Structures are given as structure tokens and as C-alpha cells.
């Protein structure tokens, strides 16, 4: 047996090795997409456009990346996809700052915080590098070439329209939101509420419950709401996890309740196909990626008239019935974009 002193040292060594390993693994993952044209000077149309998503591995941003690659191929430019592994401004900021050293011709950014990323954006702007925000936005939008975002209010409204029709405009409807105060969730709930109240006046709309995006919490909340309201006819889960939890509660109870959800991640799409989720709001991430690259190209070639800002994209409604229609399923998120 090791002496106490030795075993302490051993554990210390082992833990530092572990940390080192994790760090190496992290940095390896961040640099998945080394840019090919980074060293070449930007002459003519040989542009390198940096795309920094909210988090690299999420299906939504993999889908955006695929859209960006499609546009890049048409225009003959290079896309440099760099980002953090988690939705965290503290991790995204260093990625953005280090990109400045590679002098990309344009920056496409999904800010993970509406103000924390602004100083880094200013550094790009003062280096005369055009910046376009995609999907989420910045509070201070001055100097940005364009803003591209999906319309969360329209998405919530579209969910209300489809849900209201599915329940025949009668009964009680519940909302399971994510974290209180999240701006995208608030916009979705507002849009949902506005359309539901205007189009379906006979529906009783409950105040939102907050699942904090924990599936099990969303499930127990919907189970409780079913007990509290005999006439519960529909549930709107404003994000993937809330919708999954709601769907599970309804399916286990064998209740006749329509579930509407948001975002076509692999999990929610599986639930949509099996009929546990009936309605799904899908964001058009392919188009977000395409537009971002097209706008960057337009800015670099001086074709400012091609840019429409802010550009707000509408969402698509998928249902269990049309989930296998290629015109709908082409919008479902791609788990991993093959570059």
C-alpha cells in the first residue's frame, strides 16, 4: 500500500491529468473546422466567412451550418464554423475574440447573450469586418450589417392557430414555458396568447407553468393540470423539453389532449411521428444559414441593396399527419452537418 503522502500525490497527479485531458479534448472539439482559406488574402471573391453558433453541437446550429455551406458553395466562399460546446457567453467570447486574429472577411454570430458579446463585436467593426447577427440578437444593434432572426411571436401564434383548430376552439389550454424571463420564451407565449384570445374566444387559457426545461418537471406539471382541469384540451410546450414532458404525461394517461411543441430536434420529431406531439413549430435554420452567408457576400461585394435588415423569418408548422411529407420534413433539424 502507498504511504499517505504518496497516495495524495498520486491523486493530485491523476486529477491534473484528468483536467489536462478534458482541456485537450475541449480545445480539439472547438477547432473542428479549420478554415482552408484563412491564410490566403481576401482577393476578389475568395472570401472566408466565420460562423459562430450559440453552441456548435446543437442540431439547430448544425442545420444552420448546413444552410450556410449550401450558400457558400453557390457563391464560392469558405465558411469557418467555430464555437463553444455549451450555450455560455463566457465560453463563446474567447472563441469570437480569437477569430479576430485569423482576420475573416465577415463574422456571422449567434450571440449567446444580448450584451456580453457586444465588446467583441466592436473589435470586429473597428477592424472593418462586417458583422451579421443570426437567430438571436444584440441589444445594441448599431454598426451591424444585418440582423436575421426567426419570428418567435409568429411561431407561438401559429401554434395557437393549429392547436385551436385541433381542439375545435373549446376547452382549457395550458402553457408550459421554460425559464421565467427568457426573451424567446416570452415572445412565443405572447404570440400564442394573442392569437388564442383573438381567434378562439371560447378557450380558457391558463397562466404559464415554468418547467425550467426539465422534462420530468414538465411531465408532473401537465399531470397536475389534467387533474385540476377536467376540460383540459390542449398543452403548448414552448421548447423541446417542455413539449416532451407534456407529451409523456398525456400519452401515459391515455388522455385526449392535443400537444403542441417547438423545435424539430430528433427527440421532438420522434414524438411527433409517434403522435405524442401533434403540432410542432419548426424554425427555418437552413434559410437562416443561407441568408447570413448571402448577406455577408453582398456586403463584401458592395451590393448593399440585396440586404434586408432586420430580416424576420417565419416558422413552419409540422403535424403528425404531414411529418413524412418531404416538403415539411426537409425543415427538421440535422443532428450533424456533414461538411
Amino acid at each position, binding site marked *: 500500500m502507498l504511504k499517505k503522502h504518496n497516495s495524495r500525490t498520486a*491523486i493530485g497527479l491523476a486529477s491534473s491529468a484528468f483536467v489536462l485531458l478534458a482541456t485537450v479534448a475541449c480545445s480539439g472539439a472547438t477547432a473542428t473546422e479549420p478554415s482552408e482559406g484563412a491564410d490566403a488574402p481576401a482577393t476578389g471573391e475568395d472570401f472566408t466567412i466565420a460562423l459562430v453558433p450559440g453552441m456548435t453541437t446543437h442540431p439547430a446550429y448544425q442545420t444552420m451550418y448546413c444552410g450556410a455551406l449550401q450558400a457558400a458553395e453557390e457563391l464560392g466562399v469558405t465558411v469557418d464554423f467555430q464555437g463553444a460546446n455549451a450555450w455560455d457567453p463566457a465560453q463563446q467570447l474567447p472563441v469570437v475574440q480569437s477569430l479576430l486574429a485569423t482576420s475573416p472577411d465577415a463574422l456571422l454570430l449567434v450571440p449567446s447573450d444580448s450584451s456580453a458579446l457586444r465588446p467583441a463585436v466592436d473589435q470586429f467593426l473597428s477592424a472593418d469586418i462586417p458583422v451579421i447577427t443570426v437567430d438571436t440578437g444584440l441589444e445594441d444593434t448599431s454598426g451591424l450589417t444585418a440582423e436575421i432572426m426567426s419570428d418567435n411571436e409568429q411561431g407561438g401564434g401559429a401554434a395557437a392557430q393549429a392547436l385551436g383548430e385541433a381542439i375545435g376552439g373549446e376547452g382549457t389550454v395550458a402553457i408550459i414555458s421554460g425559464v421565467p424571463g427568457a426573451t424567446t420564451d416570452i415572445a412565443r407565449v405572447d404570440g400564442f396568447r394573442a392569437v388564442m384570445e383573438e381567434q378562439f374566444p371560447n378557450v380558457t387559457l391558463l397562466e404559464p407553468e415554468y418547467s425550467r426545461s426539465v422534462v420530468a418537471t414538465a*411531465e408532473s*406539471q401537465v399531470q*397536475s393540470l389534467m387533474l*385540476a382541469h377536467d376540460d383540459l384540451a390542449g398543452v403548448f410546450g414552448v421548447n423541446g423539453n417542455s413539449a416532451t414532458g407534456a407529451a409523456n404525461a398525456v400519452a401515459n394517461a391515455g388522455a385526449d389532449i392535443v400537444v403542441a411543441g417547438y423545435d424539430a430536434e430528433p427527440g421532438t420529431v420522434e414524438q411527433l411521428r409517434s403522435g405524442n406531439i401533434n403540432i410542432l413549430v419548426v424554425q427555418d435554420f437552413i434559410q437562416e444559414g443561407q441568408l447570413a452567408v448571402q448577406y455577408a457576400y453582398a456586403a463584401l461585394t458592395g451590393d448593399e441593396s440585396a440586404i434586408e435588415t432586420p430580416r424576420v423569418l417565419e416558422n413552419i408548422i409540422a403535424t403528425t399527419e404531414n411529418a413524412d411529407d418531404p416538403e415539411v420534413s426537409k425543415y427538421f433539424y440535422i443532428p450533424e452537418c456533414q461538411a
Partner: protein
Amino acid sequence: MSAKRLLMGRKQPVETTMMTTLDDAELDRTRRPRTPLQGFGAFLGKGDGDVARVLVLLLIVVVIGLVAPNFISKASWMALSQTATVVALLAIGQTFVIITGGIDLSVGAVMACSAVIGAVVMRELAAGGADPSIAILVGLVTSLGIGSLAGLINGLIITKLRITPFIVTLGMLSVATGSMNLISGGAEIVGLPPQLGSIGNTPLGGWFTVPVLVTILVAVVAGVALSQTRFGLRTFAVGSNQGAARRVGIGVDWHIVRVYVFAGFLAAVAGFLLTSRFVSASTMAGTGMELSSIAAAVIGGASLMGGRGSILGTMVGALIMAALQIGLIIAGVASFWQTIAIGIITVAAVYGDQIRIKYSGERS
């Protein structure tokens, strides 16, 4: 507490003076005639306050049931029991840790991490054409292994590097969350064998699902282990007075390591049961669960100073939290008021327990 006396009485005859004064105090109390109120107080204090806690739970159930009669129903029980399982399993491990005078802030993250990694293994095996039951079994073993490993690392760093449990497990919370996101890409894991769903969701005998039965089984085993075995006695001894425990020859470090491994193992059990309920593993599943597990243990009478706590109390604590979570929605309480109510009741429960201890003359 009882263990402390037991231990001192057995092994440390030096402290006889203290024992004498204690006996005097006890004698004093027994001499005085009992009023009915005192008698009721003594009744509440039975089982280190567990009787009082069960009564509080019943009171909550009755009050919510009067406001919203639907709360007293089978459907409500199914929701409540399912909800309570996660917090209960995490809180049982947490209770052992808290009794030793430690704390485990990593249980939620370890639960999510072990569940997600186990799910990735199941998904890959299923995609590779493995038999579903083999895939599920390997996934289970992987999950339990990851959970125990996280506990082992916690325990070793705490005992060998002498870093406080708060810091070590806070670090583990971060490491487990990060590792989970590295492996899963931060996304929900789906594409698991559908047979998992029948484990998690089929009610046996109509009233109890597998996760609920497993939780009850774990609670019984842990309760017996804590109150009836040498393992439990040592857990109290380590938390009451670590120095004394060391002097009487208890392998304190090794015991602490085992307790953290147990907490990590139970976190993995909770995570696997969650995966079986949703046939998917979410990276968000552990959010805030470390605090819920601590709250359940503390409502259940565990002292953050160590040396005190019981599994029955913790189970009642978990049930109180689940009853509030489910019941307040059924009673139509607006969502922000629910969180306020849970906070107030947590503090009130602990205060009530302290009052009870003060008047019953026990030393806590």
C-alpha cells in the same frame, strides 16, 4: 445522536461526569408530572420527530385535498409518486452524506451525466443491432459505474487531499456537466430501445410503477442500513465527532469514501429510472436537483452540522416536496407562488423541528 452516546458510553469511560449530568437531567424530566400538552409534545417527538413530520405531510395532503378534491385520487398519486422518486433517491444518498457532516452538490449533475452516458451506450448498441435487453443491461451497468466513479472521486479528493466537500462536489458538478455535454453534444439523447419505456411507465398492480417500487426498495434497505447496522452506526459516529470516531478505530476516511460512492450510485439509479420513463436522456434533467435533495433531507430532520438524520424523515421530506409541487398546481396556485410556498415551508419545517427539539430537551 443516539450513536454518539452509545459510542461514548462504550468506549470512553473518561466522560463519566458528563454522563452523570445527562442522567440527572433525564431523571429531572421524568420526575415532573406530565401535562397533556407535554404528552402530545412527547408523542410528536417520537422517532426523532418523524411522527411530527408524517403529521405535517398528512396536514398538507388534507388541506390541499379540501381545496382541490381531485388531489385525493389515483391519478394524483401516480403523478406524485413518480415525481417524488428522483428527489427521494438523490436525497437518500444526500442524507448519508449530510449525516457524516458533508454535503454533495454534485448529485443532480452526476444523475444527468450518468444517465446521458448510459443512454449514448444504449443508443450505439441498439444502432449496432444488439439485442435490446443486452443494450439496456449494458447501459444500466455503464450508468451505475459512472455514478459510482464520480462518488469515488468525490470521496477520495475529500479524504486524501483534505478539501471541503462543498468545494469538491461543486467542482464535480461542473466536471460532470461538462463531460456530459462533451459526450452528448449538449443535445437530448434519443433512439433508445423502446422496451425501456415499459420498464419506466407500466404500473404494476395498477398503483406502483417500477421507478416507485425501486425507490421504496432502496429506501427500506438504506433505512435498515442506517439504523440497524454497523455501517449506519459509523455514519453517525463520523458525523458526530470525527476525532472520537478515529480514536475508537473507525476507518473514517474509507467510510466517507463509501458514503460518497453510495450517493453517486443512487444518483445513477435515479438517472437510469428517468431515462426509462422518457425513453430519452436530457442534459437538463439534473438542474437544481442538488438543492431539492438537500431540502428533502433537511425537512426530514437531517442536520447540516452532521450526526443527525433518518431515511424515514428524508422520504417524508421528499413526499412533502412532491405533494406541494403537484398539489399547488391542482389547487390552482399561480406558478411563482408555488416556488415561494415551497421555500417558506422548507424553512418553517426546519424551524418547527428545532422548536420541538428545544422543548423535548434533546440535544441536537
